[in-house]
């Protein structure tokens, strides 16, 4: 039986999510027993267009990229948004709150006319996306679980409960109770509260759960002394394409 043909593509982004595939180390070899990678620009010279499963990293920020994405959607039976940029626009949505023409001139001055750009948007703003694996960067174990599910014919699922569940499970002292801002209560779990575990707080990189209690989150942040503007600012970091960032 032939192996599933898989391709990796990237648009605007840092390539950090694709790097996690190389970071699977020896694990990558076992995965290659079950899938055939036919297109992966960063790692392979060969390029084939008969892929069935496409992982796409990065966000869309210019018309030419939207066209390239549409071509990939046409070919792939299954399209997976890999990483926060592809899923929800990512940190790059920060630029959406400024006038795009002004931004071009501010950054590039005289050469601004050479650069085409529009507001940062996730893949799903251009084409239908079958699955999402969020995270900035992705958790490579989540990617592996996802592949295993798909190969077994099961429907892969990512958590729809807040980071707090995984955070408390690990016994961390609540960051909000320590007096620091944290977006854990409204952010999608699946990262094992990696940032809290390393001494920081949840920045919200995996995006909002489907029914976030944003009012309670805002109240909790206000109690810490954050102003209305600061709270919106915090939401704009990763949830810039959502309604709560306005």
């Amino acid at each position: 039986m032939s192996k599933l043909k898989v391709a990796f593509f990237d648009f605007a982004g840092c390539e950090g999510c694709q790097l996690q595939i190389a970071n699977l180390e020896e694990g990558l070899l076992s995965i290659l027993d079950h899938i055939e990678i036919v297109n992966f620009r960063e790692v392979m010279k060969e390029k084939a267009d008969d892929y069935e499963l496409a992982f796409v990293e990065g966000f869309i920020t210019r018309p030419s990229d939207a066209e390239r994405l549409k071509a990939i959607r046409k070919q792939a039976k299954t399209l997976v948004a890999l990483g926060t940029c592809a899923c929800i626009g990512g940190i790059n949505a920060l630029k959406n709150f400024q006038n795009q023409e002004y931004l071009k001139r501010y950054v590039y001055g005289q050469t601004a006319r050479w650069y085409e750009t529009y507001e940062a948007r996730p893949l799903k703003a251009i084409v239908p996306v079958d699955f999402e694996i969020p995270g900035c960067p992705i958790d490579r174990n989540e990617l592996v679980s996802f592949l295993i599910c798909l190969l077994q014919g099961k429907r892969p699922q990512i958590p729809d409960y807040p980071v707090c569940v995984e955070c408390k499970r690990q016994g961390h002292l609540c960051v909000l109770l320590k007096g620091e801002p944290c977006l854990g209560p409204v952010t999608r779990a699946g990262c094992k509260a990696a940032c809290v575990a390393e001494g920081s707080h949840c920045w919200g990189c995996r995006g909002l759960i489907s029914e976030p209690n944003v009012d309670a989150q805002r109240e909790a942040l206000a109690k810490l002394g954050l102003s209305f503007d600061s709270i919106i600012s915090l939401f704009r970091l990763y949830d810039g394409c959502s309604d709560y960032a306005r």
Partner: protein
Amino acid sequence: MEKRDISIHIEHLTRVEGHGNIVINISNGNIEKCEWQVTEAPRFFEGMVRGRYFNEMHHIVSRICGICSIAHQVASLRATEAAMGISVSTQTVRLRKLALHAENMQSHLLHIGYLVLPDLLGLGSILPLAQTNKEELLLVIGLHRLANEMSDLIAGRTTHPQRLILGDFAKYPKEGELIILKERLKQSLPMFEKLAHLFKSLWAKIPPFERETEYIALNI
């Protein structure tokens, strides 16, 4: 030069980080066009950071690059600290240098092992090595994993780590963990020598290309 017509158009070079095209047009031996086109989509980080808080800078600019995120974080933290007159302890400086060394190791191994080695072996990628030269492949992967585990220990993780913060580290590695790391690094030296010998044996495959170059390094 031969009076040839050559037309090369490579869309999105493979096995490099980032998007770029090569366009070469030679007509009757004359070079009409020789361009390396950078087609990477601009993201406007200089604009993204406007109006943001000082303690978020390093977190945002980390996302400039997934492979060298630690370098971006350290540069940003140092800039913010210089702007605000914050001085850091010797411990913080040393931990930052360790994090940068771990990243250099990871990045260089990725480059020579995953991106360049296939060219020297006449392969499209290192993936076929799993069948033909498994030992050499596992050598590259093993050292790559060591570099990543060093990043995990010092910085929190390899890509967009969390431990580097303004003026300090959010979490310190334990002394015992550092002692183990030092031992693992010492024990990896013979493996690095093996890797060096592998590349030495393939030296003839590197095309003879020299040009006058100025090497500049900044001392941190």
